[in-house]
C-alpha cells in the first residue's frame, strides 16, 4: 500500500495518478473507435474533458448528499475539501456532461453510448488499481483467505493485524475482462446493444462484489451500491429486450450494393 509518492519533493496521491490514467486510457480507446467510425479523433479529447468535469462534480455531489449528516463547516469548504468521490455519482455527472457535449456536436445517438461501454469498463478497471494501491477504504470484509491482506498504511487503514478481501483486485480483473469482451463485440451488435451489455455486466459485477465489501446495508440486507447495480441491470436487460423485439440484437449481415434502376425503366 502506497498512499502517495514524492517526486522532486512534491507529494502526489497514487489514487490521483490512476484516476488520471483511467481517463487517458478510455480517451485513447474512444479515439480509436471514433477513427473507425470516420469521426474526428479530436472529439475524444473533448469527451474526456466533459467527462472529467461532469464526473468530478457528480462524484463529489453524490458524496455530499450521502454524507450530509456528517459534514461540518461551510458548504464551499465541504465541496472543495479533501477526499470523497462516489463512482455512481461520477457516472451520472459524467453522463450528463457527455450528453450536453454530444448535443453540441450533433453526435447524440446510440453510437456515442456504444463507445462509452468498453471505455467505461476499461476506466473502471484502471481506477480500481488506485483504490488498491492507496488503500482508500474500498476493500472488503475481514477474511482469512490466502490472498487476504491488510491496508495498515492506507488512506483509510485497516486495524493492525486484520486482513480483508482485496476487492479492488477482483473488480479490476472482472471489469477488465468485460472491457476486452465488449471491445471484441463492437461490430457484432446493433447500435445500443453494447452499452446495454455494459450495464448488465457492470450491474452484476458490482452487485456480487458488494457481498464481500464492507458497505452498510440499506434495504433488505442490500447496500446502496447493490440497489444501484440492480437498477443498472434492469435498465440493461430492458434495453436488450427492446432491441431484440425490434429486429434482433445482431447487426444485419453486410450485403453487396444492389444496383437500383429507375422505376420507369423497369416498367418498360
Amino acid at each position, binding site marked *: 500500500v502506497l498512499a502517495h509518492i514524492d517526486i522532486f519533493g512534491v507529494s502526489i496521491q497514487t489514487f490521483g495518478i490512476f484516476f488520471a490514467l483511467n481517463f487517458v486510457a478510455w480517451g485513447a480507446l474512444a479515439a480509436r473507435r471514433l477513427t*473507425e467510425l470516420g469521426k474526428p479523433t479530436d472529439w475524444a479529447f473533448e469527451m474526456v474533458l466533459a467527462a472529467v468535469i461532469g464526473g468530478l462534480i457528480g462524484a463529489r455531489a453524490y458524496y455530499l448528499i450521502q454524507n450530509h449528516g456528517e459534514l461540518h463547516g461551510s458548504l464551499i469548504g465541504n465541496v472543495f475539501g479533501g477526499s470523497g468521490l462516489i463512482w455512481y455519482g461520477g457516472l451520472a455527472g459524467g453522463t450528463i456532461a457527455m450528453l450536453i457535449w454530444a448535443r453540441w456536436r450533433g453526435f447524440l445517438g446510440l453510437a456515442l453510448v456504444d463507445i462509452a461501454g468498453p471505455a467505461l469498463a476499461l476506466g473502471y478497471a*484502471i481506477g480500481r488499481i488506485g483504490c488498491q494501491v492507496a488503500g482508500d477504504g474500498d476493500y472488503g470484509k475481514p477474511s482469512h483467505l490466502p490472498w487476504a491482506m491488510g491496508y495498515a498504511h492506507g488512506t483509510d487503514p485497516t486495524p493492525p493485524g486484520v486482513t480483508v478481501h482485496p476487492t479492488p*483486485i477482483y473488480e*479490476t480483473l472482472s471489469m477488465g475482462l468485460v472491457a476486452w469482451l465488449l471491445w471484441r463485440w463492437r461490430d*457484432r451488435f446493433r447500435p445500443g446493444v453494447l452499452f446495454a451489455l455494459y450495464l448488465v455486466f457492470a450491474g452484476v459485477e458490482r452487485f456480487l462484489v458488494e457481498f464481500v465489501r464492507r458497505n452498510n446495508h440499506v434495504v433488505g440486507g442490500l447496500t446502496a451500491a447493490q440497489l444501484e447495480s440492480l437498477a443498472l441491470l434492469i435498465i440493461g436487460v430492458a434495453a436488450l429486450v427492446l432491441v431484440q423485439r425490434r429486429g434482433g440484437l445482431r447487426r444485419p449481415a453486410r450485403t453487396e450494393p444492389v444496383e437500383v434502376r429507375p422505376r420507369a425503366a423497369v416498367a418498360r
Partner: protein
Amino acid sequence: LVGTFLAATAIALLAGAKNLGTALTFGQIAFAAALVAVLLRPPWRRPASVGREGPPAPPPPKRRRTRP
C-alpha cells in the same frame, strides 16, 4: 491477459512480496497494462480473426405456416 496477471503475481512472490495480496496487486497492474496494450493495438498488428471481421450472416427467415 490472465497469463500476464499470473506471471506478474508469481514474479512478485519470487521477488519477496510481503504476502499474496501484495503480489496480486502487481498482477493487477500488469493485467491492466496488458489490457490497454491489447485494446489499443494498431489494426495492422491485430490478428485477422479479431475485431473488424464484420458480423456473421443472420439465420434464414422462418416461414410462416399457412392454413390450407
